[in-house]
């Protein structure tokens, strides 16, 4: 990695940003979301905090422009230079400009705004270009799936050489602080799901994530990652090939698609075909082999056909009858590599979906990052 010449850095930890012009290529809300997520990439690994303002001069002004646009670096039309930014400092310092001549998108088509914004905000914070082709600070643009995007270790070393790592969490000052709510090894989870190659656990207003094979998990506030979701998520499941994740609380559910909240949610669970007496879902899991989703409510479960978008007939059935060794009730469940992982209190049961039996049972010591 490199820092910018003269190693300019922001002396303060709270920085403001303002998007003072938008591209017609995307909905303003999608631009807001992409920029917010891009800032979050950097705030996750530093003590920096970013706040969006809607008027006046922000530390980091963000906009879309074409050709000559008032600084010394006119844009060059489609292709070529797609954006630039200025290192930390007053006035134009920190500002980020995107070339309107590009086609800005939230996906793989055109130029993905989130990815370019992560790069340019790296400059706004003081990073130069990296010669590591895996680094987001490499000079040329290349698409990666934003859902699974991660800073390279080179990027993290670079930004932390300027600002250090994220502040350690405050010692538990009140009963439901992060540590005490999650250090309890007999934690009974609220919900669990996969998201991409990560496993996500929910408890109260927190969620933790980790790789399937590693015991280490990280924790964050649900609201910091998905501001539109409530705390106390009770069930969740992912349909990987659609990049969709469904979250349930009480009789409502939300859908995140490509990590972005979908409009028109929350919806009522009855729109899925549940009878009126179902007030909440305890757990849910999607089986990609059958393309069906299992919803667990109390001691019973329903099965939903994701292709026909209909509840299968003949349900509910008893959990103990269909999943020998599981139940009668469950807290959470996720699917990974041809197995369900059922959580009941502090026990997690690995269940083989083909041989229909429990293959492993162990105490989970999910501490969600003490």
């Amino acid at each position, binding site marked *: 990695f490199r820092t*910018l*010449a003269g190693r300019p850095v922001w002396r303060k930890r709270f920085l403001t940003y303002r998007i003072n012009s938008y591209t017609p290529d995307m909905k303003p809300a999608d631009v807001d979301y992409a920029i917010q997520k891009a800032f979050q990439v950097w705030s996750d690994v530093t003590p920096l905090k970013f706040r969006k303002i809607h008027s006046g001069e922000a530390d980091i002004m963000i906009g879309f422009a074409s050709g000559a646009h008032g600084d010394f*670096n006119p*844009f060059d039309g489609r*292709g*070529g*230079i*797609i*954006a*630039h*930014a200025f290192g930390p400092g007053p006035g134009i310092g920190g500002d980020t400009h995107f070339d309107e001549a*590009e086609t800005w998108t939230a996906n793989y088509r055109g*130029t993905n705004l989130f990815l*370019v914004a992560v*790069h*340019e905000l790296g*400059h706004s914070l003081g990073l*130069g*270009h990296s*010669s590591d*082709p895996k680094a987001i600070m490499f*000079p*040329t*643009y290349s698409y990666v799936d934003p859902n699974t995007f991660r800073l390279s270790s080179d990027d993290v070393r670079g930004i932390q050489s300027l600002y250090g790592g994220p502040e350690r969490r405050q010692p538990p000052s009140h009963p439901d602080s992060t540590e005490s709510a999650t250090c309890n090894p007999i934690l009974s989870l609220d919900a669990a799901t996969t998201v991409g190659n990560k496993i996500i656990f929910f408890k109260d207003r927190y969620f933790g994530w980790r790789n399937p094979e590693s015991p280490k998990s990280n924790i964050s506030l649900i609201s910091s990652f998905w501001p539109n979701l409530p705390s106390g998520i009770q069930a969740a499941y992912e349909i990987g090939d659609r990049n969709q994740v469904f979250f349930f609380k009480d009789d409502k559910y939300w859908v995140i698609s490509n990590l972005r909240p979908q409009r028109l949610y929350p919806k009522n669970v009855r729109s899925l075909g549940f009878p009126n007496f179902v007030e909440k879902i305890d757990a849910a899991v999607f089986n990609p082999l059958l393309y069906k989703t299992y919803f667990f409510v109390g001691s019973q479960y329903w099965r939903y056909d994701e292709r026909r978008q209909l509840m299968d007939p003949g349900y509910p059935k008893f959990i103990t009858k269909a999943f020998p060794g599981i139940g009668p009730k469950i807290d959470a469940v996720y699917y990974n590599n041809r197995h369900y992982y059922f959580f009941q209190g502090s026990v997690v049961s690995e269940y083989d979906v083909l041989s229909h039996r429990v293959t492993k049972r162990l105490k989970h010591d999910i501490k969600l990052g003490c």
Partner: protein
Amino acid sequence: SGAVPLTNSTGSEENDVLFAERYLETFYGFVMDGVPVTKMKVSPNLMKNKLQEMQQFLGLKVTGRLDASTLDMMHMPRCGVPDVHE
């Protein structure tokens, strides 16, 4: 021999050279215009050095020549911030 490390130069090659000079000027601090004519003999090395610097930084084979992979890289969409700062 061409003023810059190229095989035989034709119209499109001339454009490539101009494009490359601008690229190196923008991102690698290569100063062409300021080189007095008398020193033009020096400039092939200057350009070659800058090409090598760019090839090194961007992980290309360091040839000092304006070869296809180097030109391809120069045409890739990218950030407007220079790769090296004087």
